[in-house]
């Protein structure tokens, strides 16, 4: 499975076109980032896209309204930080996701011990709470994380923040293998997956990959929306050969 990432609000006016473009290029699902002022899990690339989006007035309501208009028939998953959901209210946030046609949520600063209140509302509304599983967790913890996960388990590919890496971290295939051994839910790996070769390598073990910074960086460096869509098509082709 291929899960490319879109920052809600970057590039400023054109970003909604990425959603339909990525779907047409063969994405199996799309992660929609709702920008937050203090994204502690994100490296410089996603930070910059978020800052630009926020500086141009991006906000959760606007992002969700635009996503609702997108004509796509693949799963959409929101990725944001917990304060966005907390401020809006768990039930309202979950309902707004459903109204926007978003079926899942990733909240990277809401770990297992803190997730219950949100997850109860998400379950009620029919929003899958995707849990992150990190290489630093022991197997017992991975089991508990996978048990709470809905939709799929998000394997954190490296000990660090989002961003491209020249070499695929050994931890990416390692976490995929550890998760596959303990859960029947789909295992998707993200963080540090930067090119088609790395995506293909991880996909030999994992059920899917998230690619984010490598897509956004192309546009920050002047590439067009179509360049980003073309890159997603290349990722698709590489995965199809696995």
């Amino acid at each position, binding site marked *: 499975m291929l899960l490319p990432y879109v920052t809600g609000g970057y590039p400023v006016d054109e970003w909604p076109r990425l959603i339909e473009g990525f779907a047409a290029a063969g994405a199996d699902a799309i992660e929609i980032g709702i920008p937050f002022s203090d994204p*502690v899990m994100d490296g410089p690339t996603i930070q910059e896209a978020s800052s630009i989006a926020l500086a141009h007035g991006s906000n959760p309501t606007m992002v969700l309204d635009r996503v609702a208009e997108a004509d796509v028939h693949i799963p959409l998953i929101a990725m944001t930080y*917990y*304060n966005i959901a907390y*401020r809006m209210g768990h039930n309202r946030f979950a309902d707004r996701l459903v109204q926007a046609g978003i079926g899942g949520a990733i909240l990277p600063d809401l770990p*297992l011990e803190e997730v219950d209140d949100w997850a109860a509302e998400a379950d009620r509304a029919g929003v899958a709470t995707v849990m*992150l599983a990190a290489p630093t967790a022991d197997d017992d913890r991975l089991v508990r994380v996978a048990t709470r996960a809905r939709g799929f388990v998000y394997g*954190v590919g490296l*000990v*660090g923040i989002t961003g491209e890496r020249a070499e695929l971290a050994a931890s990416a295939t390692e976490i995929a293998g550890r998760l596959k051994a303990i859960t029947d839910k789909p295992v998707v790996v993200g963080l540090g997956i930067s090119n088609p070769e790395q995506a293909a390598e991880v996909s030999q073990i994992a059920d899917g990959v998230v690619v984010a910074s490598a897509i956004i960086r192309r546009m920050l460096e002047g590439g067009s929306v179509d360049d980003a869509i073309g890159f997603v098509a290349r990722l698709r082709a590489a995965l199809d050969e696995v």
Partner: protein
Amino acid sequence: MTVTPTDTTSFMPDPDERGRFGEFGGRFVPETLVPACAELEAAFVEAWADAAFTQEFHELLRTYAGRPCPVTVCSRLSSQLGFRVLLKREDLNHTGSHKINNVLGQALLAKRMGKKRLVAETGAGQHGVASATAAALMGMDCVVYMGEVDIKRQALNVFRMRLLGAEVRSAMSGSRTLKDAVNEAMRDWVATVATTHYCLGSVMGPHPYPWMVREFHRVIGDEARAQCAELLDGEVPDYVVACVGGGSNAAGIFSGFADTRARLVGVEPAGGAAIGRAVPGVVHGSKSYLMQDEFGQVQEAHSVSAGLDYPGVGPEHAHLAQIGRARYESVTDAEVLDAFELLSHTEGIIPALEPAHGLAWMVKAKDELAGSTVLLNMSGRGDKDVAQVQAILDGDPEALSTMRP
């Protein structure tokens, strides 16, 4: 609801097993960091119950930091204001502020955990200098993240940190102040968690930090309680006042008086009054009051004092405000500068801009305080701020731009 403390029940107990002070606190961190937070909690609990550890800690506080620091009775200021002013002199500690208490505790703990590297965030630079000092003392590597704006405001402290062997990295994102330095330090820690201890500088962040940092600063309140008892015939002051950014010096001194009749007052900068606005939120690992917009985006705080330029506040302060055990007031930058000059003129003590907030409130509230005894935590000395204040008083436009009404 206002609680009138009349018995000895502590209003500042340990947090619950989920790191909550009432409804505030917790551990809102990326999954990658959860095992490290749990490991730190276990190590702290074990060390804090180990007499050998606490003995080593207190020995360092005595022979290295220069504790106990005195309580000074301010006679001239007292007659001018119409109430008795006592200062707990944290400004006399090695490195010039209360911050040294916490970093010595955390560096000792990091060493005990086998960590070889410290990362820290800093606003005014006091916590950065203290962290760099502790790292030099214990032979550890140290990286300090500091907002680009603060690096300009606090050039002297940047040089101090480098002189002490630390690497100072500029936080270029967001408002380029303390909150962004915290983000960068957390990102560093997420990537280096196996070898690195995050030496957090205030009573904020994920559990166990708010509790652990308070415990390392408890010495402020414990000393002050005994010193006040001696000065006041066994009595406690009527008011205990401290400035609040994240709130570590306030937590330290409040913890010595929470079970007494003393009224506890935290003073926030008007441009960074998280408790004053009382909107709950989650950032940097805990649930507390947080300055934010209608969508939950964290707002930038504005204060003449880099050390208080923070949009959040430690979760225990949010709790103390909610249950009414402490009250929180705010003062403007102009009131703070007046207090800065006042203490310098009348007592020969140049305060840091941070504790000058406490004094500024006392001046403002002098009718309420008339005839009482007020203990102010003089949490740091003003050397670091002299150049900035001089520039403001000289009317330098760039310096004036750091002021908010």
